[in-house]
């Protein structure tokens, strides 16, 4: 049974294939309206995440399927102490595919061991977010027409921002991608990621604190939120939260075809004055999130032999 637990579960060819299907859905959504007719997606959200859940549900509805599930652990048997494995086996008897979010890291791995239907990891604590990375890849691919030969700037919380780690890991497989890692020292990228991804794959990267100096070189600027819950004390948070706020004047030296991405939600790290700039792609990115999830659902259902 194929599942999607982390982005590296998919080969480059498979990612290309999913992106191709997503592009086809965007071009001709009518063709896909009944692809999942009579099928059910279970959204098991052991912790709340409204936008991710809505994105999965919208994706399944647009494929003509139905959705069941819960949006917080209190309304599931988990509140009675049921194990993840038992919940998954039970739900697998009702649904054709499961998207799950869980506060504990590795919960989807446990789910995948006992599941008779495909599991999609919709987030496990601060660990993996593979569908966000697929969304990012689709957005970059659509904006640039390629996933290789580019300079990608990642800015903000590079220490705890899992979407950043996952995007770097995914893009490490494409040729001639250079990373510029822009963050305060306290929030720089973890050593293990440098060792196990950047160094191991001989990737070109630069660490800097200076967003404006890095700007002219960038093809992609991936902004992230400095999350309060990642800090041990409030003083550190208050000191660093406004370090890397993107404003229009900082874009003076940017390329005309720069694409600005953000996994959202944002707090204030991208000024709202940028929203109307043609380089702002984060709301397009949100829309792409639905299309890539549609393509992913189709792929996993096809791999499970229940959809052609």
């Amino acid at each position, binding site marked *: 049974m194929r599942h999607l637990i982390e982005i590296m579960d998919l080969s480059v060819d498979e990612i290309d294939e999913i992106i191709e299907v997503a592009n086809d859905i965007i071009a001709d959504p009518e063709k896909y309206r009944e692809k999942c007719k009579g099928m059910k997606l279970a959204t098991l959200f052991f912790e709340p995440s409204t936008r991710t859940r809505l994105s999965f549900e919208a994706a399944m509805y647009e494929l003509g399927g139905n959705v069941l599930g819960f949006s917080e652990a209190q309304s599931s048997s988990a509140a009675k102490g049921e*194990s*993840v*494995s038992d919940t998954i086996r039970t739900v697998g008897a009702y649904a054709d595919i499961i998207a799950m979010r*869980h*506060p*504990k*890291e*590795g*919960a989807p*791995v*446990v789910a995948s061991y006992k599941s008779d239907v495909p599991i999609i990891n919709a987030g*496990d*604590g*601060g*660990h993996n977010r593979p569908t966000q990375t697929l969304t990012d890849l689709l957005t970059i691919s659509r904006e640039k027409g390629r996933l290789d030969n580019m300079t990608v700037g990642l800015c903000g919380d590079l220490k705890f921002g899992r979407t950043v780690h996952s995007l770097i890991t995914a893009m490490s497989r494409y040729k001639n991608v250079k990373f510029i890692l822009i963050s305060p020292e306290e929030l720089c990228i973890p050593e*293990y990621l440098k*060792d*196990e991804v950047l160094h191991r794959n001989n990737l070109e990267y630069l660490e800097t604190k200076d967003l404006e100096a890095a700007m002219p070189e960038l093809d992609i600027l991936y902004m992230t939120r400095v999350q309060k819950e990642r800090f041990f004390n409030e003083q550190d948070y208050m000191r660093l939260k406004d370090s890397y706020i993107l404003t229009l004047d900082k874009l003076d030296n940017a390329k005309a075809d720069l694409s600005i991405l953000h996994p959202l939600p944002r707090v204030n790290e991208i000024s709202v004055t940028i929203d109307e700039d043609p380089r702002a792609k984060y709301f397009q990115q949100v829309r792409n999130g639905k299309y890539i999830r549609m393509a992913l659902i189709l792929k996993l259902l096809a791999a499970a032999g229940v959809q052609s």
Partner: protein
Amino acid sequence: MIIGKIENGLVLDHIKAGQGMKLYGILGLDKLDCQVALIKNADSKKYGKKDIIKIDKLIDIDLNAIGFVDPHITVNEIKGGQLVKRTHIEKPERIEGFVKCKNPRCITTVEQELPHRFVLTDREKGIYRCIYCESKLEY
């Protein structure tokens, strides 16, 4: 200091100095009812100092646990006072059962029956990661 020869049992030799007690704990040797000797800081031609564990009984021993602590350890099997088998250890690809994931956010913290399993992700540096949360195993 003299510790006598054993007739039937195991000698864990070439343990990196200072690691003997850790290995003693991981292998659960405290639960044995036979004689067990832990020698610290013995002279070693190869390493200068080493630890040695002698177990006065032939027991099933977890070679993965030994390889995890130190892949340079040799396991000597003694029968009738003679060395009958010498096993050289390698770092195992997977380990299970004797160490726990310490990441408080790992699923294993809430699902008690899950086996704690780790895979070797960097042989050179000896880094193991939890199969669930991918945290680096700290021991």
